């Protein structure tokens, strides 16, 4: 394969991992949403580049969906939700920043070790994409675990979804129907989560999910 093509794919997929770390680093909700939009743009670029080098035009549609829904609709919707909820504009973390970052690095290392062992002998581009996709997924999970605010957990969930799409784009022969259905399921998930957010806020006057633990009598 052309080396420059590989290098650019590597750069874009690596940029996706980097934006996942930037999501972990943010301490303001609005900045978090902006970084999420940036991640979606990076994803769209990565998928678009994959479409170009794999000669798979249907991936362009995936990239377009990523730009439209994930970089525009979802961040704007979340912005308005945060404004209407009137919650604290700061991200409340369960674990402080530096341990979270170190755990994130550990997860990236883990996903690389696992993926490089498992996919031995496969196409280098697919191997590298799968390794990066697994690290983005694990970082999204880490974000959901270490945040107590529901909005930032939603962002963690969405960034996890970005990793799934990167993996799907890297593996050749993914049908378009599946991608579109994944994109719509994310949108439905956003709507459901939005409704839940407002229900939680009505019930507890907060979107801090630790209030749920108090309610169930599971105070740590």
């Amino acid at each position: 394969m052309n080396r420059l093509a590989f290098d650019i794919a590597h750069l874009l997929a690596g940029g996706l991992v980097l934006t996942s770390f930037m999501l972990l680093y943010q301490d303001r909700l609005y900045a978090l949403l902006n970084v999420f939009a940036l991640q979606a743009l990076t994803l769209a670029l990565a998928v678009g580049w994959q479409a170009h080098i794999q000669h798979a035009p249907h991936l362009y549609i995936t990239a377009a969906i990523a730009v439209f829904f994930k970089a525009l609709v979802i961040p704007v919707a979340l912005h308005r939700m945060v404004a209407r909820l009137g919650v604290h504009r700061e991200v409340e973390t369960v674990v402080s920043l530096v341990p979270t970052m170190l755990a994130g690095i550990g997860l990236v290392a883990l996903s690389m070790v696992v993926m490089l062992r498992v996919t031995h002998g496969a196409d280098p581009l697919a191997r590298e994409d799968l390794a990066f996709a697994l690290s983005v997924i694990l970082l999204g999970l880490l974000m959901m675990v270490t945040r107590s605010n529901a909005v930032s957990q939603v962002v963690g969930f969405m960034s996890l979804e970005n990793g799934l799409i990167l993996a799907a784009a890297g593996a050749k022969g993914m049908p378009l129907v599946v991608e579109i259905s994944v994109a719509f399921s994310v949108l439905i998930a956003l709507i459901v989560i939005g409704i839940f957010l407002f229900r939680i806020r009505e019930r507890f006057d907060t979107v801090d999910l630790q209030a749920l633990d108090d309610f169930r009598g599971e105070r740590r």
Partner: protein
Amino acid sequence: MTLLVHLAVQIVQMLVVLLAAPLLTGLVRKVKARLLRRRGPPLLQPYRDLVKLVKKETIVAKSASWLFRVIPYLVFAATWVAAALVPTFATGLLFSWSADLIAITALLGSARFFLALAGMDVGTSFGGIGSSREMMFATLAEPAMLMVVFSLALIAGSTQLSTVAAFMLSPAVGVRVSLGLAMIGLVIVALAENARIPVDNPATHLELTMVHEAMVLEYSGRHLAMIELSAQLKLLLYVSLIACIFVPFGLAPTGAAPGALLLGAAAYLAKLAGAGALLALFETSVAKMRVFRVPDFIGVALMLGLLATLLRFVSREM
């Protein structure tokens, strides 16, 4: 004969870093002042300050030990040697067999260790505060620097600066995400190590924020001149390091003709001027951080270094 030429180039290199260091600091101050719509001190002011300090009487506290008097010279010597090991206008210098990135990190680390000792030696509260803060930042900045060095070494196959620069000039380098991450990490480390603005402000003596200044508060006269000169050398060192690794254009190769050496010198001066202007622009556009935010900021450099090393393993040559 060739040995003599090599020796001459190495000596010129040592003198160039020593003479250019105050000029770089003067340039940064001047550009910063112009950006703030002030006129600013003349470019040569740092030289005049150094001369003035050397002429002044040196006052040493009663409680100071012999360490306090020796440390300025130790710090200066370590920093000068480290700065002379970084290729500025030519690679393949006479001592480049020892000009290993790890050796440079170690020299700077020992200089910092001695400076922190000097801060605590007199026993005033400011010196203690400065030393403890400096060490707090160092615990993150030094591993970050080493991680950047490791990722560079993994990419270029060597920690020798001449080899790294030659590799960066070759077409084998390509577009790499690891290199970008390593560069940002190195810039953050450089800002932190040189006490530049988001981390520390060398222009104030405000007890809430000062780090480097608090450590050297007890020094005066020629001791202070040595310390100031080594701080300026350190800034020049980091600028040359970043220039030599990431923008090595114009560097003269080993045993080059005088023309290539002159071209290298011109390119080096241009890089210095560009870096000074960029630094001044950056410093005027960001605000100073709270001291307890700084570990997060330097932690980013550590994280970028780690990430660069990890991402290297899934790149082309895996």
